[in-house]
């Protein structure tokens, strides 16, 4: 007897969707990152290529190994691991030694993403997890200033920490915008990163609330500090253009599963993250506060997600509708 063919197909919802796929989303992100990668290549030369290539390949290989270990089909063709690797490389100094890139790249994917079950499950932005592990372990090798002594470019945030505001007299904001500074190899290519961010906004891959709120948070907090004591704190525009603020706003803070969903919650999230950047830069021991600031606000995300839109017929706080009639 021949087995009975099912008459109706049974599958899990959603049954209709708009046609966007994870792969498209990731491809857009990758395209948005390419100008910055090219700029890093021209500024820092072969060193930058070496770090980016090694980081990407390690990230993809370790994700594939994790899927094998879980006895699943490797889902690395969604290119997410590639983006994690590239973003992690963007935060490193171009002179990073090979073992640092390998440990950090695999830690980003394994500890940042796969420990939590893969795409969509992680609470913290994966490249930043790798960055934090490396920064805590090998501070000297991760120091973008101390490892690039043969470069003529200034490291604005280190100089601000060490020398203070007087150093800023001979720094030109437009040169900062053009990437004439030391920092993470891709993070300091401000103009290409900005172009990539605008591309993402135009393609609607990310929504504008988080980047705008993040930049506003940085700007407003720096403005407050500047207003309180102009001799002790750098101008607000300097904080926007120095270090990895722009990369953080467009690529790291907007990471899908680590940022809140609603309008109000994502505005608060961005403002808090931006404020945290300046607080770490002013009071902390780390020159560039962006990675730790974003890790901190990522932890707030589940809390912000409790700010919900008002459901139809119910109340905002989620209490059942008890209205009478």
């Amino acid at each position, binding site marked *: 007897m021949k087995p009975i063919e099912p008459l109706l197909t049974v599958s899990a919802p959603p049954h209709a969707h708009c046609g966007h796929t994870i792969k498209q989303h990731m491809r857009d992100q990758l395209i948005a990152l390419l100008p910055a990668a090219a700029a890093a290549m021209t500024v820092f030369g072969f060193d930058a290529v070496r770090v980016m290539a090694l980081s990407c390949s390690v990230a993809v290989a370790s994700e594939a190994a994790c899927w094998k270990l879980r006895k699943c089909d490797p889902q690395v063709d969604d290119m997410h691991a590639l983006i994690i690797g590239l973003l992690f490389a963007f935060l490193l100094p171009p002179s990073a030694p090979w073992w640092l890139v390998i440990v950090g790249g695999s830690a980003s994917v394994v500890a940042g993403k796969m420990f939590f079950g893969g795409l969509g*499950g992680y609470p913290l932005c994966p490249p930043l997890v790798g960055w934090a*592990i490396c920064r805590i*372990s090998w501070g000297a*090798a991760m120091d973008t200033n101390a490892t690039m002594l043969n470069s003529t470019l200034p490291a604005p945030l280190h100089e601000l920490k060490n020398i203070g505001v007087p150093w800023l007299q001979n720094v030109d904001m437009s040169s900062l915008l053009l990437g004439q500074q030391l920092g993470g190899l891709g993070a300091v290519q401000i103009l290409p990163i900005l172009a990539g961010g605008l591309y993402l906004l135009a393609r609607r891959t990310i929504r504008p609330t988080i980047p705008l709120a993040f930049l506003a948070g940085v700007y407003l907090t720096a403005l407050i500090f500047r207003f309180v004591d102009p001799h002790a704190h750098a101008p607000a525009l300097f904080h926007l253009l120095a270090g990895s603020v722009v990369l953080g706003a467009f690529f790291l803070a907007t990471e899908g599963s680590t940022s809140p969903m609603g309008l109000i919650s994502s505005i608060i999230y961005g403002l808090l993250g931006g404020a945290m950047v300046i607080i770490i830069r002013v009071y902390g021991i780390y020159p560039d506060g962006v990675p730790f600031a974003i890790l901190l606000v990522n932890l707030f995300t589940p809390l912000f*997600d409790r700010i*919900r839109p008002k459901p139809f017929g*119910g109340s905002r706080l*989620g209490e059942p509708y008890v209205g009478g009639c």
Partner: protein
Amino acid sequence: MNRLWKEFSKGLWNELPPFKVVLGLCPVLAVTKTADNGFGMGLAVIFVLTLSNMLVSSVRKVIPAKVRIACFIVIAASLVVCVELLMQAFAYPLYQQLGIFVPLIVVNCIILGRAEAFASKNPITYAIADGLGMGIGFAMSLTVLGAIREIFGYGTLFGVQILGSWFKPFTFMVEAPGAFVCLGLGLAGMNALTNWQRRLKGLDAIEGPKHDCASCGMCNIK
């Protein structure tokens, strides 16, 4: 004799304190920077746990049920003060390393847990066996965890350099986040081992928690 061995040996593997019964995490996370520290802390806990089990068991019929927790704490606190003074006298460097975590043994869940769950219901001999077994299991786990973190974090084991000069100390492992990651990996490894043993015996594996509605709550809008 058979039961005595059973009570003693359950703390060594089946109910191994930090890994199987997830209790007493404060010292597990805080003092296991090196194998030395872990071992020292383990010895202190063996001492306190065995004696507190013995004392609790011997006075179990005298203590009124309503104030039993307070009594257990007083017994444990007295013993911890003994340990603290002994350590200051005979192992001062270790005392300086462990710092606040020696007095904190008083509020260690294992001490109170064994007193409440076992010693207050069983005769002295079994209580001593139980305390000794649990204490040794705890000391073992702390030493192993400390050894792993020390090897990766400093490249040494019990203070002896075992990894060559090529090794770049992975400082993350001896910082606070490394403690959590190590403990998590330890628990995962332990669960995998248990499931593997069960599968060898032909039993079903124990499934972990699933991602279900209880872990999300996003649709909790009534």
